[in-house]
């Protein structure tokens, strides 16, 4: 602006700054005292850790060892070994290194059987680095601790079908 701001406006603006901070004094603070109080997580929250699911009807593991999640992970943290018996594939070993996970959820998206899911949990810190390398037992145990997040593989894939209209529900 070419014109100089008048002095009364300057003084008024100075007092306005003081007034705004004073107004804020009377508002309620926004601090949430974590971990005494935890805020409610939204429904689609995908937390920091993973689980391998088990089919509730048959009691078998869902993972068929197809290695799609291993191929798509950008950080290359999943290692799967496959074995075949009883007419379908199984995962002989499944190692997920949580230290390098960037939480992109691509592994969940490609899984054809909803085997790997992210969990509706907060970040679960550990005290040792070994605890962050999850093997199959730990992954299945995780599934019993928390429930799965909203986005599972088949749900995300159904969202993407070009023929069907978009899925809308909370």
């Amino acid at each position, binding site marked *: 602006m070419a014109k100089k*701001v008048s002095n009364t406006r300057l003084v008024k603006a*100075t007092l306005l700054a003081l007034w705004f901070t004073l107004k804020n004094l009377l508002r309620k603070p926004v601090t949430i005292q974590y971990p005494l109080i935890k805020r409610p997580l939204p429904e689609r929250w995908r937390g920091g850790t993973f689980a391998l699911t088990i089919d509730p009807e048959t009691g078998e593991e869902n993972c068929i060892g197809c290695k799609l999640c291993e191929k*798509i992970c950008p950080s290359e943290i999943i290692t799967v070994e496959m074995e075949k018996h009883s007419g379908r594939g199984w995962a002989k070993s499944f190692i997920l290194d949580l230290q390098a996970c960037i939480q992109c959820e691509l592994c969940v998206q490609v899984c054809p059987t909803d085997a790997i899911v992210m969990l509706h949990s907060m970040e679960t810190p550990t005290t040792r680095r070994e605890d962050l390398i999850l093997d199959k037992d730990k992954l299945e145990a995780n599934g019993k601790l928390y429930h799965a997040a909203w986005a599972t593989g088949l749900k995300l894939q159904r969202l993407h079908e070009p023929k069907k209209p978009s899925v809308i529900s909370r």
Partner: protein
Amino acid sequence: MEERVIEREFGELAINMGPQHPSTHGVFRLELHLRGETVVKVTPHIGYLHRGVEKLSETLEYDMLPPIYERDDYLSPTANSLAFVLAVEKLAGIEVPRRANYLRVITAELQRLASHLVWLGTFGLDLGGSLGGGSTLFLYCFRERERIMDLMETLTGTRFHTNMNQIGGVRYDVYDGFDRDVFKTLDYLEKRISEYKEMLENNPIFLERTKDVGIVPQELAKEVGASGPVLRASGVAYDIRKNKPYSAYQEFNFQVPVGNKGDAYDRYTVRLKEMKESLSIVRQSLGGLPEGPIHSRKPVKTPSLFKTPKGEAYAAVESPRGELGVFLVSDGSSKPYRVKVRSPSFSNIAIIPHILPGHLVADTVSILGSLDPVFGDVDR
């Protein structure tokens, strides 16, 4: 890092605003030569945050790359992945459904709001100090930004690096009541942003610190390749959303604010007006969200089955810092042959050695803050 003796003239004080500094907006080394309090020469050193994104892209398949690109300019993630995804779609000739374009616009504008709020907060920190009025402004801006991140959280599941853009569309769709939540947040933000505008607009201390400080002439801005609010504050009305529109921006009605002098105050005004325009764009797009699919490819299974034809393509988006472009060269396989990211902050901070000499030390932080560099973007 080479060891080099800093050469200086007699009577100059060579001081390092070193890589670790509260107000260099990241890891950035600025070597200042001072005579008294006036800056005489300045040499910037970058490269402390180089992570090799361009080389990494040559080893990963196309579908795995958007989350990596989100971490480039870490203050506005969807802009980066949008640029990459647009380049691949241009090369492979994939059409994106209209609803996906609208959702891309919504997330991009919300992230622009979040990024400008971070800019305003850290600008206050630079000007006012981490123990003082600046930190008050900083905490207010971050409090408002939490609202935006809450929106992203209820839509996608994570707060910031959401991996929303994919080649061919978007990943998540809206839920019942999304527009109600967004409108509530937008009303709240509009009130607060007007409060900050009133607080700072005629504030004498703010005017003294930013008026006529760091004037960037139009020719210098064009020569160096600056873009975004830095270029627009110097008087050039160039906005990629208007001049070369991408993904549904041509259907919205918004203005592009332009400054006339190019000092720090003009850059502040341009960004504040951009925030208001973003609010209006999100309102328009949510009001007219079309029905339809959100993705135009089959669901991604094996990433190595997606091959692009041989050729090259360039796509640019308007990130909060300027023109962020991705130049993609493909040799017909499922991995890119070469990706070059044109980062806006890299060209913006090239202005510093030209305009800083002659100012006082205290103006250094003012100018650096008003250029708004992000060093993840500069170094990639």
